[in-house]
């Protein structure tokens, strides 16, 4: 099966910032992303969990976007601006994709 090099960017970000981040990604020309739930976690600012919570503050979501290498820099700039003053983790890893025409 023919595969193509791409980058997988995963951004764990505070839930109240989700729509701002995805808008920024769209502006940066990202063609697709998926939003994954996060149940809880721990970091420098303490630990949290979603159980029983009503408000969105005090919760994170993960936004994953597979992009062509050439779009990476723009995406990271957009992402960085969003997480700059906020909690959040941005990781990039290499991957291979099927159907490269989709990215």
């Amino acid at each position, binding site marked *: 099966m023919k595969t193509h090099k791409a980058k997988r960017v995963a951004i764990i970000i*505070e*839930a*109240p*910032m989700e729509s*701002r981040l995805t808008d920024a990604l769209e502006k940066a020309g990202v063609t697709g992303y998926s939003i994954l739930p996060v149940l809880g976690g721990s970091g420098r*600012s*303490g*630990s949290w*969990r*979603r*159980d*029983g*919570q*009503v*408000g*969105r*503050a*005090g919760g994170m979501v993960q936004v994953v976007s597979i992009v062509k290498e050439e779009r990476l820099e723009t995406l990271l700039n957009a992402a960085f601006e969003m997480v700059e*003053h*906020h*909690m959040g983790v941005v990781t990039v890893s290499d991957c291979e994709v099927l159907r490269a025409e989709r990215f």
Partner: protein
Amino acid sequence: MESIFALAGQNLSSPIILSFVLGVFAALARSDLSFPEAAAKAMSLYLLFAIGFKGGASVAAYGLSLNLGMAILAGLFLSAVLPFVAFFLLKILTSLDTTNAAAVAGHYGSISIVTFVAGTSILEAQGIASEGFMVAVAAAMEAPAILSALWLVARSKAGQTNGGAQFDRRLLQEILFNGSIVLLVGSFLIGAVTGERGLASIESFIVAPFQGVLCLFLLDMGLVAGRGLRDGGRVLKPGIFVFGVVMPLIGAMIGLALGAAIGLSAGGVALLMVLSASASYIAVPAAMRVALPQADPAIYLTLSLGITFPFNLVIGLPVYVAVAQALLGGSS
């Protein structure tokens, strides 16, 4: 005074308070008891819909007194002004920096709808009438406090440097159309439009099981608050703790004065006191994470949910009701 203690004692032995206590206990005992996030959110949607609808239906039944406009103005005013009081008090009592103090202050201008709901329950249990439109006042009080808090940061030194408050049109629209405001106002209007007939058709959903759902919701809030106290206890310096108990009393007094001035009934005044005394733990924290990311959420969440909410629930509410009733109630 004596009768206030009696009231507090009676309040303490109601299923809703004890459910909250059970939740706190379970969290402190590190029990794995927990509500799924979806269940907690569903219960909160139910409570908002029910309380809004009932308020609207009661307005439809008893007519819209001229007071509605005045009461909403009073609510907007309280929400906008209380953060300044809170900010001032925090500067005296604590060593919080401007950003954190402003963030906390915003929570105390805004409201906690479940505290309001618990307040209406006490009124009902004691047979004290109140204006149905008070839920609209509750909705009106959600947002202005946020603007006051952001203004407090913007005019400070911290506001000029370090990013300051991230305020824009988008945040404004998020605040004004946040879910609880829309649902509260929307169901209030539906109740007002459909009136008695509407209420009759869904009464056995929004009235009969209401107290029971409230119990489970408070159990859940106890779990969350207890967890917060366990993990966030480190922020609870004495000054902060004192603020969390004194600020609601000050808020309630201001609410009392204003409510009496505009001529609300004893029940209505009690509810305005409750609203003024309560602190937001849903809408304002979310807005603060966006607008004041430098502020530490552990501080405002622990204060609002871990200190002020239980204080109001257990001690504050019966006191506010008793005071309003003593000063303004006809008999009893």
